[in-house]
């Protein structure tokens, strides 16, 4: 078979090769993350402790200081 020597063909070939290379590399990385549960390990060991600390340190309203306004809203009349 005659090999295409035109510039476009060679550029396309290189692009396809590069694209396939990136595709394979990306999938290999994804597979490593997936297979070794790296996402789970990251979330359990790093993200969750960080978030826990964040929520523990958060200032919160003391709801017990809120009055229980039983009469704030008009009385609802039952039509039964």
């Amino acid at each position, binding site marked *: 078979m005659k090999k295409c020597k035109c510039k476009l063909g060679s550029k396309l070939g290189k692009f396809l090769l590069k694209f396939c290379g990136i595709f394979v590399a990306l999938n290999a990385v*994804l*597979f490593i993350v*997936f*297979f*070794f*549960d790296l*996402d*789970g*390990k990251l*979330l*359990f060991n790093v*993200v*969750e402790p960080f*978030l*826990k600390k*964040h*929520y523990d340190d958060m200032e*919160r*309203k003391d*709801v*017990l200081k*809120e009055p*229980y*306004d039983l009469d*704030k*809203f008009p009385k*609802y009349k*039952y*039509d*039964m």
Partner: protein
Amino acid sequence: MAKMNLAKAVKDFWYGKPHTAEEGGRRLGDLYEDKTGLLKHREWRGVKDTFYYMYNIWGYNYVHMVLDILKYSNNPIDFLKGTLRYRWMGQTYLPVIHWFERGLQGMRGEALAASAWHYRAMVSASIHQICNFFNADTRLHGGKQNNAYKHTFYANETTCGTLFYPWMDAGYQYIPMEMIPYFVTCHVNSHTVLNYIDAVQSLGLPGDPCPMCQAESGLFVLDDVPDSAPLIITCNEACDASVSTHTLQDWFANKPLFALPLPMQFDDPLVKKYCMNEIEECWKFIEEQTGVPFSWESMKKRLERQNKLQRDEWEKWEVASKTDYYPINGVAQALFRIYSTQYGIQGDFWEEASEKVKKIMYKCVEKKINPFPQTRHRVIAWSCAPLYYSNWCTWAYNCWGLNVIINMDSLMFDMEIRTDSYENMLEDMATYHMWAPMRRMAVGGMHHIFELWDYMKRFNCDMVAMYDQLQCKGMQGVHGLFEDEFRKRNINAFWMPHALPDCRTVSRAEIRRQINDYMTTVMHEEPLDPSLLDFDDSMTW
């Protein structure tokens, strides 16, 4: 010999290792890291299923979680702000893919694919709810009551979403207040809820009522409920402890509130009439608060979709009960069903998943594929399940061949709602409302808790997994009656003690030990996978 080993290695690589110890088993228990329940590595399920899991479940769901946020959120920045504001959000929903892992462990082929669609629908519905919370939350919008806020109803999570269909054409939405902050969190990350249980006990309230009620109150005590709706519909859930919950919620939420009771003695026709009146009163309350009238068209349209979903479920149950070709595992069945019936038709996620599952199921029927080939016992699970270990069914199948075919949570709303007239609809709505989670068959009276025997027969089950919620006074009261009936009817049944959301009271390891004891001492059986008998996952999500 070396040739045989090579052939086996190639076969194991291509198809995955076989299930049972005799065949050189896959030893799933060896995959766990000690205590955390994280995986040293994921299971190699053979080429096809490993890559199906990687691309079509793991990768697909990560991508679709982002797409769902973009689809349902008015502004994705709000989603980020909400994540940093609410513990139940950030701490819980990041490890959601690990929730899939726990529920789908060891599954292959059609069981893996079909069960994962149920999980996908639940994740999509959860993101839908979370976005609805955050789109309307005044705390994330500088105290402003925006349009989304004005078009949102808050309701207790056991008040069925069906009640709010009449206002949906007018752009209203319903958010079950505790479903995402409490119920779903326990399944995904059981650590989160402990903060809320401890918060309510720190006020001096006793620790012995149902921990569900404690956690739901604790959300308010820690000021961790978004301010996303101008009004609330509460109910007494299944028990008296919940009445106290709603007193606290009334206090802390400080909004116009309508209490819509779930009657205890619901078989009485007069009680039903009372319930119908209550529902109409509730609708009147909403009309008064919103100024928008009840729309029959809006109601009917959604009820018809809900009825179709129910008929789909009956179709699936028919296959589950009469054949070995039902591809959904116990946990995916139970959670999908309780979640979809409570949240109702608020998107198309339930219907989409149901269609996909039916397609897989009929493929199994046509090609006579048994998705759970190692089934030794067909199990029906009864009463309320441990939320922190809902995936026990997956473990039980992998370890002992116990295949949970159906469970009480799936069967509670076993009905259609008529749409031929307003009167018929209202009558059925009352029944539907009264058959609420934990009410109909848990504390709903002798007739209903003993529907177990009929369902056991209908689903062709030979064993009962009897949940034993230690802090549910209602169900504790009938423990002995069940024991008597099991003996009298010569039924194989094991008890599973638990404390609903609180994994500290009865650990997962203890639940497994109880089942192991029953299977060895009473059933005299050997485990399919001995590596799963005893392992420490005390710190797991």
